[in-house]
Structures are given as C-alpha cells and as structure tokens.
C-alpha cells in the first residue's frame, strides 16, 4: 500500500505523489512564502531544496507586507524563479532519503518571534535542525498529529522527525482542532506534539473519549503546564508525556520527563548556568545569525532556570517576563500555572500595569468557560490566588477576553 505522507484539510497526499511532484518541479524560489502556510507546499519546497542542495529562507505566510519589509525582504523576490539545470529522478522513498541525507551545503533560514525587538534571522544546517531527530525501525509506524505553524522551529522539528522515518503527518493546526477526535481515530494517530495552549483548546472536543492509539504526547513551543498531565492521561491511557526545550536560535536541545530537563551527554560541555541562574548555550550549538549577542563564546537564552544537579534543571521563567511589584520579583508563569487550576478558566495571561504606588501590579486576562458568571469567577480567582500565592503575586485586576494574543511563534504577548 502506498504510504500516506500528509493529510491536510480533507486532502491525502501519499509519498508517491510527493515524489512525483518533486520530480516534476523544474524550478525553485529560495524564498518560501506560502499563502495560508499550506503545509504540503511548504514541505514539498523544503524537500526539493534538500534534493537540489540550495539554501532556503522560510517566511511565515502570515507576514504582512510591512512585516516583510521590517525583516528586509522585498516582495519582488517572490516572483524570481530559477530553473533547475541538472534534473534528477527520485524513484522511491529510500532514494529520496539518501538524497536528503547527502545534502551538504544546504541551509534553512527562519525568523525568531521578535518578542524583544524586530525578528532576527537565524540560519540552520540540516545537522542543527535534526539534532534530536531519531531514525529507526521502532519509529517507522508513527503517525503524527502536526499541531504547529509549519514555518516555525517546532513545526520543522516534527516535520523532519516524521519525514526521515517515512511517517504520516496529520495536519491539525489552524482550524483543524475540532476535527482532532475524528482524525485520531481515522488515522490511528500515535504521536501528538503541540503547545500547552493547543491541548487546552482541544480538550473540550476530546473529553469523555479514550484514544488508545496515542502513545506519546509532547509539549513544545511554550512553557509546559503540569496541570494538563492528568487530563491527558485520562484521554490517552497509553501515553508517555515528554516536554521539549527548543528555540529558533538553537533548535531542539533538551527533553524533560515532567518538568526536569536533562542535559544530554553529547552537549554537556556546551551548556552552562551562570550565577544569575540564566541558561547559556555555547555558540557551536546555535544556528548562524548576525543578530546574536554573545558573551564570549556563549549565548544567553534569557531563560531563568533552577539547577537540580549537574545534568538537570527546571525552567523557571523568561528573564524579560519578570515583574517587580513593590520590590518583590514575580514570575508571571508561576501565577499562570497556579490560576489555570481554577474551575471555569480555559486560558489566561498575567501581565503587569505600572503605577506610582508599587511600581507595578499584576493584572490578568482570562479566557473563561461561558457557563461561569464573571463576578463569581473573579471572586474565585482572587480567593484561590490569595490562598496559594504570596499577596504581591495576586493579580489585582481581572479582565475577561475572547482570545489571548500571541507572537508568531506562539508565545503569549504580555504587553
């Protein structure tokens, strides 16, 4: 039977079709900027560039003309196609894989989310992008629920993991969430990789059902939310939960069982935690960029961690996220992880508001379950916060909103 490569919005693309389309494609554009981020065309373009060994730059299809201008890309380049002179013919998946792995000078550039200033371009080799990709017999039968933007680092990680094992990818991002239950059953999905936000938003569609096919659930792209673990285990009884630390700058680096990240043996000399508990990564682990600010040979991730022992750490917060309330430092993530447990809360983002009395105070924007009364929920939130948090960590003002704004790579906007 012809193995399926991608299922997306009701369309099924097989590996044979993918290979045919690659064989037919006689020209290319080094800029990949695809309307609606159609995953088939993005994946096809990436594979094509690997086969013909030319470097590419991936731009989020959501980029507006202004954003493109900001990152220095002139839209005229999108119509400049080059012809391939020495066409090759791929016969089957194995020759496709050989060709991909032979690709030497290939690189892929993409942009950071720009939470601190304008997006920065980072260039990766196949080696840095696939650092944690595992290939082998035991991965052959995996079927992936693909729940990331395909132009972002987390999406690329899942894409390579699936492609290099000839797995099927079921696209569940961007409007496909409500179909997840049907898709899991129809395609017997084994692996789900998504952000905490994605899991929170699909629970209402999955609750009450049990999906035995799912063997592994991975969290990536944003802070792991341990309060989701029990719910996930009820819905997916056979599941193993993993948590990935990856960044646009360095690709995938650490994997955690629960909240304890392990620094793998192979990169132990290239990871450091300084006196201020900031996580530093040696430049050799990074992609290339003109925009990195290095401290000697080290890149400061801006992530505050807690060192458990020489090879393990917990993620605490982003340095830029720390709020100062009357001299007390508050990590908004801690507050979010506490308040998400309050019944009726679907999602929330904790932010700060400046004032002359305490410098800053915490406020929180909440997406609530429609069945809950606003005043009752406000009272419950404050009561719960007062009981479980120090008083300066209690958000003072609670607002209800429809949706939490996010940066392109899925981080909550705390402005």
């Amino acid at each position, binding site marked *: 039977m012809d193995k399926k490569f991608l299922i997306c919005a009701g369309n099924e693309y097989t590996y044979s079709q993918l290979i045919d389309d690659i064989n037919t494609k006689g020209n290319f554009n080094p800029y990949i900027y695809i309307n609606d981020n159609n995953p088939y065309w993005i994946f096809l373009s990436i594979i094509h560039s690997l086969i013909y060994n030319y470097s590419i730059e991936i731009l989020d299809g959501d980029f507006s003309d202004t954003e493109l201008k900001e990152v220095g890309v002139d839209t005229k380049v999108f119509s400049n196609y080059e012809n391939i002179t020495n066409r090759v013919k791929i016969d089957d998946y194995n020759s496709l894989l050989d060709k991909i792995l032979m690709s030497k000078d290939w690189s892929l550039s993409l942009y950071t989310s720009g939470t601190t200033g304008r997006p920065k371009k980072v260039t990766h080799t196949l080696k840095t992008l696939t650092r944690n990709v595992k290939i082998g017999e035991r991965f052959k039968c995996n079927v992936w629920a693909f729940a990331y933007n395909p132009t972002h680092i987390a999406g690329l990680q899942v894409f390579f993991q699936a492609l290099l094992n000839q797995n099927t990818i079921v696209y569940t991002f961007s409007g496909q969430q409500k179909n997840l239950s049907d898709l899991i059953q129809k395609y017997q999905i084994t692996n789900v990789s998504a952000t905490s936000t994605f899991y929170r938003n699909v629970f209402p569609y999955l609750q009450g059902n049990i999906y035995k096919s799912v063997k592994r659930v991975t969290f990536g792209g944003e802070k792991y939310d341990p309060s989701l673990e029990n719910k996930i285990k009820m819905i997916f009884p056979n599941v193993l939960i993993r948590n990935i630390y990856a960044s646009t700058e360095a690709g995938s680096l650490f994997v955690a069982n629960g909240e304890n990240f392990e620094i793998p043996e192979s990169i132990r000399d290239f990871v450091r935690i300084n006196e201020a508990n900031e996580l530093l990564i040696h430049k050799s682990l990074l992609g290339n960029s003109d925009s990195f600010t290095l401290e000697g040979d080290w890149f400061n991730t801006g992530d505050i961690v807690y060192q458990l022992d020489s090879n393990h750490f917990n993620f605490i917060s982003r340095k830029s996220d720390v709020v100062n309330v009357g001299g007390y430092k508050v990590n908004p993530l801690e507050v979010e992880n506490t308040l998400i447990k309050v019944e009726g809360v679907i999602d929330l983002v904790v932010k700060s*508001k400046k004032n002359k009395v305490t410098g800053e105070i915490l406020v929180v924007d909440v997406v609530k379950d429609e069945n809950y009364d606003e005043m009752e929920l406000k009272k419950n939130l*404050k009561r719960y916060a007062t009981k479980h948090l120090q008083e300066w960590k209690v958000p003072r003002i609670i607002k209800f909103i429809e949706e939490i704004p996010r940066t392109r790579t899925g981080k909550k906007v705390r402005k």
Partner: protein
Amino acid sequence: MTRKVAMIINEMLEESGLEKVDNVNLSMSLRDDFNLDSLMLAELTVRLEDEFGVDIFEDGIVTTFGEVIEKLERK
C-alpha cells in the same frame, strides 16, 4: 463622580471577598476606613486611570476619598 468612584472601590472590595462600604463620605480615609493596603491602593490607581485617564498619585500622596475626587475633578 463620587458615586462612580465609590462603585469602583466597592467592586474591588467585593472581588476580594471583603465587606463593601455603604455610607461613603469625602473625609473617609482610604487606608483606615476603606481598609485599602498599598497593593489595593495601587489597584485603585490603575482602575481609576483606566476609567478616567487620571493618575491620582501623579503629584503626591492621596489619603482621603475626598482627595481622590478632587484629583479626578481637577483634570
């Protein structure tokens, strides 16, 4: 104005599970009569600024309900 500000303070108290204050007069102390601590005062200034666009602590300390109203009305 007096009613609106009293409403904002009472809403704050209610959300925090505290007793509302019924009979409000201008000489009442924010700290002693309304029982607002500094975090609640900070909260009040943010709420008032959202509502009226005025920072009541901008030029010094306010201690009574009347002073708050005065600051808001002056703008």
